[in-house]
């Protein structure tokens, strides 16, 4: 019997990205998330008789931007198709989709897997409308339907079967999520369903050129679930293969409590969707000028931004990559360095205290009121030796969050937060600290040099954090070696 490691896992992904437009794909309903059920709807999204769809321009621009960023071929003659199926979350009885003629073809996304870089080829990117939301668990006899999501603009991004492990799938979705956020076309929020993923998995013996029968696991709404679904489904398929069981082409769901999958339907009884060109929407053509104009609007690629940060400001790889991957933090950083030239400190503050606060409080930068100039002032005061980083980040920064217009210099005075710079005062503190640890001094002198941090810590404590630890360290060494 073949062992698990004799098998190769082949994975293709379909990601649905909900676009950051103001209105839906074919009508003026708001796309705002989290409103009351059925309050973001219109006669079009509810499919009242006699209503007609009209295409949102912005969706085309966003699709082209993603296509250009993924090196795709942009298809210039476009039309939509009707995908017919009967399900209550779709009041028209069909979904309008570019299933047959995607706006972007081919292309690839380069992803980092461990230390290796791998090109994942795309098959296509196409536009389609989302369906409403069915709530099956609210009542025992009825399914409740909320149509706020019906008609939301989606891009479906489909890869070739180029992925070979859960880790690669994880890396791909992470990279794609970063890219759509970077382009400003999707917020990438998987929890709210702005990014959802279907996984196609098959297994074959290593070296076998023929692909195995694929199974699709649908509606995975976190990167972790994608990984779990691939792990559990590939093990199930390998097990079936080893036992010589026939693998059916199936659509499956993930049980989120134990990460097993269950069959939703089998290909044989798959619906016949009867696609045909959507008669309610005229075709649309994309001109070369439009593509060129969008190309100019595109933000620089993340890797280019990162390299610029490294060369222009001397930032380290990690700091540069943190900033390059987040437009909002990057512009905050850029605003700080309009005021000061200590780039390293500006980067540290941005990806340190600022980012940590935003992450903990789950805020976006728009909701963050501390002006970059205030952070610049803190850095300037630290560099001048008036305060240290500990006091700035732990005492003054929280105060700034509460009162963004705080007069920092007055605040420092009023609360006596200045560093103790008087040499005699520092000497006094050091003497007190050393007296307290007379025993340890002998040990230190015998060679236990690690005790130095204990002495420094004691001085910091005595001073209430208001001395420069660097000066204290130097002075203690000097004193103990005397």
């Amino acid at each position, binding site marked *: 019997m073949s062992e698990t490691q004799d098998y190769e896992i082949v994975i293709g992904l379909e990601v649905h990205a909900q676009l950051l437009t103001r209105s839906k794909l074919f009508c003026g309903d708001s796309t705002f998330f989290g409103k009351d*059920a059925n309050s973001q709807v219109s006669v079009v999204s509810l499919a009242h008789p006699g209503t007609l769809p009209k295409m949102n*321009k912005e969706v085309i621009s966003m699709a082209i931007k993603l296509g250009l960023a993924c090196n795709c071929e942009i298809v210039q003659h476009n039309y939509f198709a009707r995908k017919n199926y009967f399900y209550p979350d779709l009041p028209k009885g069909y979904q309008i989709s570019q299933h047959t003629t995607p706006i972007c073809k081919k292309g690839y996304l380069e992803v980092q897997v461990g230390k290796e870089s791998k090109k994942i080829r795309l098959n296509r990117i196409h536009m389609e409308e989302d369906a409403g939301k069915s709530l099956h668990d609210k*009542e025992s006899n009825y399914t409740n339907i909320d149509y706020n999501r019906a008609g939301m603009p989606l891009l479906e991004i489909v890869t070739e079967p180029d992925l070979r492990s859960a880790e690669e799938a994880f890396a791909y979705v992470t990279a794609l999520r970063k890219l759509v956020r970077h382009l400003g076309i999707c917020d990438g929020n998987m929890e709210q369903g702005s990014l959802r993923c279907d996984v196609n998995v098959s297994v074959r013996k290593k070296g076998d050129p023929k692909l195995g029968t694929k199974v699709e696991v649908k509606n995975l709404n976190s990167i972790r679930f994608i990984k779990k679904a691939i792990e559990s489904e590939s093990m199930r398929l390998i097990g079936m293969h080893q036992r010589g069981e026939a693998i059916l082409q199936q659509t499956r*769901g993930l049980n989120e409590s134990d990460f097993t999958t269950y069959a939703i339907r089998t290909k044989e009884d798959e619906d016949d969707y009867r696609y045909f060109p959507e008669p309610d*929407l*005229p075709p649309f053509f994309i001109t070369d000028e439009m593509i060129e104009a969008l190309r100019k609007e595109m933000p620089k690629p993340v890797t280019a931004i990162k390299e610029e940060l490294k060369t222009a400001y001397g930032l380290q790889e990690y700091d540069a990559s943190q900033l390059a991957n987040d437009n909002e933090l990057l512009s905050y950083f850029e605003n700080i360095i309009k005021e000061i030239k200590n780039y390293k400190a500006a980067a540290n503050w941005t990806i340190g205290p600022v980012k940590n606060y935003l992450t903990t409080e789950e805020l976006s930068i728009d909701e963050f009121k501390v002006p970059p100039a205030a952070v610049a002032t803190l850095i300037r005061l630290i560099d001048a030796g008036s305060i240290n980083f500990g006091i700035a980040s732990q005492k003054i920064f929280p105060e700034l969050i509460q009162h963004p217009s705080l007069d920092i210099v007055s605040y420092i005075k009023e609360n006596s937060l200045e560093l103790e710079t008087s040499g005699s005062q520092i000497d006094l503190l050091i003497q007190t600290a050393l007296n307290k640890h007379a025993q340890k001094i002998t040990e230190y002198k015998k060679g236990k040099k690690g005790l130095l941090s204990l002495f420094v810590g004691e001085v910091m404590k005595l001073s209430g954090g208001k001395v420069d630890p660097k000066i204290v360290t130097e002075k203690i060494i000097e004193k103990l070696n005397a």
Partner: protein
Amino acid sequence: MQVDDALIAKLSRLSMLDFNEAEKEEIKADLVKMIGFVDKLKELDTSGIDPLLHMSGNNNMLREDEVKNMLTQEEALRNAPLHDSQFFKVPKVIKKPD
């Protein structure tokens, strides 16, 4: 295309309609005529002719990305045969996994 009971069963399922035996026979007869009509059309040589996708010559009918013409929640639900103050209600549609 073979017009037989299997085809009628498939069409019933896709259209979510039920037919009695007499109706099925009637539909079969109609279908044979319809398919014959289309088969006749297929005799025309259309090679080299682009398919006509849309009757109107107006292409690129696009709109600006603006929020407008929404209904209120109350208006949206008003005409539904079954609803509460928030949701449309339909018969249970999912088979729960075991």
